[in-house]
């Protein structure tokens, strides 16, 4: 499965990047491809390309604030959670993503 994501927390210094790391590790462990863009104090890093977004089966938004470029994901399957969910239970979140992909056909 291909996953793209965005992580963004309130202060943009710590949770954003911890969530990114946890999501990447959990997805890879489960055998998925993943890229997580971060929107923090230092701006956007690891930016998702339109191709990556187009190819993704699902989008995971681990965010506590409004993100820029949300419209890029229109028409995609999206799971949105606060960053703390990605930090606390990354494996469960990836399992949930698989479930959503299996159950929700793209219309």
């Amino acid at each position: 499965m291909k996953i793209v994501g965005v992580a963004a927390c309130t202060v943009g210094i710590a949770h954003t990047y911890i969530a990114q790391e946890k999501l990447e590790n959990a997805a890879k462990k489960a055998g998925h491809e993943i890229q997580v863009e971060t929107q923090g104090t230092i701006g956007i890093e690891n930016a998702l390309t339109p191709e990556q977004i187009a190819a993704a089966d699902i989008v995971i938004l681990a965010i506590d604030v409004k993100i820029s470029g949300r419209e890029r994901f229109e028409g995609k399957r999206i799971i949105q959670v606060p960053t703390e969910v990605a930090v606390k239970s990354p494996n469960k979140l990836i399992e949930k993503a698989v479930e959503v992909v299996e159950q929700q056909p793209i219309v």
Partner: protein
Amino acid sequence: MEVKEIIDPKIIKTQLLGTTKAEVLEELANVLLKNDYISDVAGFVKDIYAREAQGQTGIGNYIAIPHGKSTFVNKIGVAIGVTEQEIPWETLDGKGVKGIILFVVGPDNESAQNHLKLLSLFARKLGNDEVVEHLIQAKDAQQVVAAFA
């Protein structure tokens, strides 16, 4: 750019004496003051609590990441405290904490992009279970640094 560039052994303290969140934060703030990272302990600690009020900073696995974003900060950095006993803290998994990672950041971020980038690389490491396990077992500053290598 490597994570260890942002780690300063002078602001790492293992075997913290404090047994409460308030005591531990004050202890770390005093270490920061002594090393010129901040200009005022009380003002700095007050700013930490402003962030604490917004939500839990205990991220689970015995780690807390209080944010010291404050006008009293002279120099960006990260203070690291390790305790032998669990300290009660608001955490995602309901456990206490043994490793306290205090982010020290000023209000002006334009001129500090490099340091903030380093902090973000450092934060990523905290998402790694192995790093965290080594960290909370560290007995001295050198072992703390090694945990992040």
